[in-house]
């Protein structure tokens, strides 16, 4: 690990003021991703601004929206009574991620900006456009079983590894940001970027901008929404495919649906095509399959990850069937 300066701050204003002075600085949450990457010198910031002292409060607002401070630990979010009761898909998604130890350290802000688990990104003997712009990508023709099938580009096929963000995408969460030019809000589904020809750019944050909170709108989310994760072992592994879903059925038809996929793209993938194909349709296994096929029609599997296409379809159908109470 290269040497760095360390400063702990209590407020966003202090954090931003420091970051503006040193564009080589990085914000530090629980460190569960950044410390690991710094040890491998994949990240080498000159200074760390510890932002675990900014707000970690989880507040239910009068309109029913919930505001989660960026420093809130993953465990605290999953444990919060309002979130367990009203946004069970988010609690489940968080509880499916990493281990209890890591969830006790990891912050909400850090979870959003955790970096891909592409093995070549971590291996500095490999070519990786995300690490070294223009170097090439050893994953495209290499071992790419864990890589993306949707929204890929010829420069990068990595996935965003977060479980929490998949639920946030389904829930229409809003990212609150503060920065040198003031505060702004961005829907989570627009926060992360597809790789295009600049895979090193993973989110729309501008220099020195800080995530201060995540807002969950008091939406139609029913207390039945859920999260399912398919992985190589039963626990403590990243998703091969995951599904966050919520379904409202009226008179046997789909009145509303929210569907997002993890493990398939460079960003948490809101399945808008499947949602559109489902609205107004009978809540049957056949409609669920049609919707899943609409979403996966654009999939571009690589050598080793073609299995993700049928796996994603089957998982979507199984989760929606469970929510609808029909057997898949």
């Amino acid at each position, binding site marked *: 690990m290269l040497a760095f300066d360390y400063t702990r701050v209590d407020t966003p204003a202090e954090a931003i003021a420091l970051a503006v002075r040193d564009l080589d600085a990085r914000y530090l949450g629980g460190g569960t991703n950044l410390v690991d990457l710094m040890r491998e010198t994949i990240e080498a910031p000159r200074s760390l601004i510890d932002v675990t002292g900014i707000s970690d409060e989880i507040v239910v607002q009068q309109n029913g929206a919930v505001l989660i401070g960026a420093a809130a630990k993953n465990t605290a979010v999953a444990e919060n009574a309002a979130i367990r009761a009203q946004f069970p898909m988010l609690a489940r998604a968080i509880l499916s991620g990493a*281990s209890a130890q*890591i969830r006790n350290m990891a912050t909400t802000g850090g979870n959003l900006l955790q970096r891909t688990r592409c093995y070549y990104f971590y291996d500095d003997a490999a070519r990786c456009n995300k690490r070294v712009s223009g170097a090439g990508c050893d994953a495209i023709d290499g071992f790419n079983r864990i890589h993306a099938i949707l929204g890929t580009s010829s420069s990068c096929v990595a996935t965003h590894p977060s479980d929490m963000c998949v639920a946030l995408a389904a829930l229409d969460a809003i990212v609150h940001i503060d920065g040198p030019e003031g505060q702004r809000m961005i829907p989570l589904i627009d926060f992360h970027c597809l790789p295009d020809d600049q895979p090193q750019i993973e989110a729309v944050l501008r220099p020195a901008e800080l995530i201060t909170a995540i807002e969950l709108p008091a939406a139609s989310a029913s207390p039945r929404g859920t999260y399912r994760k398919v992985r190589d072992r039963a626990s*403590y592994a990243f998703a091969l495919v995951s599904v966050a879903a919520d379904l409202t059925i009226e008179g046997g038809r789909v009145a509303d649906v929210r569907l997002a996929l993890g493990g398939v793209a460079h960003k948490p993938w809101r399945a808008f095509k499947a949602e559109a194909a489902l609205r107004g349709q009978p809540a049957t296994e056949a409609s669920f399959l049609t919707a899943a096929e609409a979403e996966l029609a654009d999939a571009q599997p690589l050598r080793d990850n073609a299995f993700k296409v049928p796996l994603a379809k089957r998982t979507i159908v199984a989760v929606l069937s469970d929510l609808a109470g029909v057997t898949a």
Partner: protein
Amino acid sequence: MRFSINGDIHEVEVDVRTSLLDLLREHLHLTGSKKGCNQGACGACTVLVDGERINACLALAVQYQGREIITIEGVGTPGQLAAIQAAFVKHDGFQCGYCTPGQICSAIGMAAEAKRGLPSFVSADLSGLSTIDHDELRERMSGNLCRCGAYNGIIDAIREVFVDETTTPVKFEEAA
């Protein structure tokens, strides 16, 4: 930097790059906490901070000043084993013993989580009222790997010591 570890205050001069695990092992010679993967994947380095289990290998020590850190050395001593330590001996909860300090610290943190009603990914409902059965224990302890595969003994030891407590979790509303 100034740390509170197992009830003792330690003043040490260390580089900000030092992990909490290296601080414990290399600087304070508290070698009970083990280094397995050094990247968050095995749990051998698990310690308790303000009662919560964390991986000391991914923690920069500088972030943990002023917190109450407990390592396996603070759980019990050879003459005075904590109940969970004695149960590991009784149930053959280890073979080589490398993962054991992390398993024990993790189990103590796990019991506190279950007691306050924190659900797990396998809990049928999220209210925190699930009983802590075999599947719950395995899921909750999945952050601690054991290369010797002593899992059955580990689970038996944890059940014996903690399950009475954890089968009567607090009610959902009270957990709020």
